[in-house]
């Protein structure tokens, strides 16, 4: 579904991604771990096509199409959806935006995510951290993207609500279907890994200083990070390979 080849990205003159390679197939969920500032959000921004991130080398192929130069809204229309790590306040009412972007019924998601009282407010205006995250997932539920880019969806969200958003994410990922029948995929950036207790990942990667330095089964990668920290973890994972 998604192929990223040797992606290099510069923001404000500084190289942030230094040659990222990543391949994602339908039905897969890729988790990305990595220290603050290692470039995780930048990778999602580059896939989505947000400005201020300039691609200097490499390509992004989505469903066989080179999208490296496409504007952001066109990528969204092709089926890529981003749940922002820190979404801005937007002076548009949430219900007006949902009305505009929804593909099919979203009422059940509004209730599942406890967002009914926020519909008539401007997007994220005065929302708490957790409310913003739920709002992001609600917008993805309206968009129904084929590839979901989830940037720390659980940070600032209480346990109960992590469960709630995970349920919706699983539904959007068609987790009820057999793996082979699933057409959706996701990249999940997570610090804590909590979300992976509910949304199972196929593979996990560690990003360090603008590169994916190792990949492996999520449970092993997480265990290694916990035991040895990011730096050490890279060494031993390499040894394991």
């Amino acid at each position, binding site marked *: 579904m998604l192929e990223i080849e040797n992606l290099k990205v510069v923001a404000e003159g500084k190289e942030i991604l230094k040659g990222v390679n990543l391949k994602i197939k339908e039905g897969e969920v890729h988790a990305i771990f990595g220290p603050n500032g290692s470039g995780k959000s930048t990778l999602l921004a580059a896939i989505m096509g947000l400005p201020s991130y300039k691609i200097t080398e490499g390509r992004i192929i989505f469903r066989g199409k080179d999208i490296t130069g496409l504007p952001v809204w066109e990528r*969204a229309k092709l089926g890529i959806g981003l749940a922002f790590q820190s979404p801005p306040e937007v002076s548009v009412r949430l219900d007006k935006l949902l009305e505009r972007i929804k593909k099919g019924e979203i009422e059940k998601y509004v209730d599942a995510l406890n967002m009914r009282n926020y519909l008539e407010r401007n997007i994220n205006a005065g929302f708490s951290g957790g409310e913003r995250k739920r709002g992001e997932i609600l917008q993805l539920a309206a*968009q129904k993207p084929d590839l979901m880019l989830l940037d720390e969806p659980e940070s600032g969200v209480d346990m109960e609500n992590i469960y709630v958003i995970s349920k919706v994410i699983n539904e959007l990922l068609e987790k009820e279907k057999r793996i082979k029948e699933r057409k959706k995929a996701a990249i999940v950036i997570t610090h804590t890994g909590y979300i992976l207790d509910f949304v199972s990942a196929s593979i996990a990667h560690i990003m360090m200083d603008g590169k994916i330095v190792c990949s492996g089964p999520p449970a092993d990668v997480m265990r290694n990070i916990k035991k040895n920290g990011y730096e050490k973890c890279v060494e031993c994972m390499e040894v394991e390979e």
Partner: protein
Amino acid sequence: MRGVHGGGRMNSLKQLGLDEKSAGKFIMDNEIVTELKVENEAVEILPSSEAIEKYGEYYFKAISPDKDKYTKMVSDGSVNGYFIRVKEGHTIDLPIQTAFVITDDGLKQLLHNVIVLEKNARLNILSGCLASAYRDMHVSVTEFYLDEGSYLTYTMIHNWARDTEVYPRTAAMLKKNATFISNYISLTRAKMIQSSPVAYLDENAIARFYSILYAKDGSKFDIGGIAKMNGEGSRSEIISRVISQDSDVVSRGLIEGNANHSKGHMECSGLLLGSGIIHTIPELKSSVENVDLSHEAAIGKLAEDELYYLMARGIVEDEAKSLLIRGFLDVGIKGIPPAIREQIDRAIDIMAVASF
């Protein structure tokens, strides 16, 4: 051809909400009253030419004819415009609709309007102005007399021609416990609009001025509101949303707290598109100790991060911009009937967003 004649005129009046059910109507084309209808016994509507005989005591009482050259033009000219009165204790549910249409090139439409609400009367007025002429001018004096406990919502939706100059002079006298809500919506180009309505508030009276302005294409707007809180416990609010697109806008406000326990708040948000100018001049003045006055002003341009946030949802750039513009103009007017709110929303949808 730009026209408000025939079907075009009907459509434009519709845009201004004048096709809806009403408690009364007053329409003036150029200098002639073309419709005057009253559908509620508690309401009296007269052309000012007649009313000035019967109700002369209300004319030029809240505003002096010598205030400036425009009030002078009105006092020197022949008397046009309307007189509206609601009898004591009556609540009029349907709005009264008024419209002033200019189609004659070079016309100076001079008007003198008077609105009287007797004790505890309640009324909504929906007032449309529409021009499709060259070098035309609209000059009006409007006086409101709101007796004790009365409640008026006065909503003006204006649709001027490129070339129109507009000089309304407005004053409202609010007796004890009276409420005046003034909504001014002007979303098309005009050569010049200069207006600064004044409200004088007695004890516990409330005045709220809302302005939703979209100056485009070289318009010049100088628009404000003045609230003089002369009675204890009176309250006022002056709130504006101003877009300047290659235009020059001055947005003023003055709130005076001249009596104890009065409370006033002013808020001006400006949005610049293209090479616009917005100059906000919020003024607060108080002559007694126990008052609560505040103001906020902010001017910005469309925020990139908001724009890209919407585009990341699959919305193309122009549409994302118009969503943000629509959102910006949504001032959340309080205290008006749903039908009027819908009318305002519709006008914004048609005139501001669709034409962006």
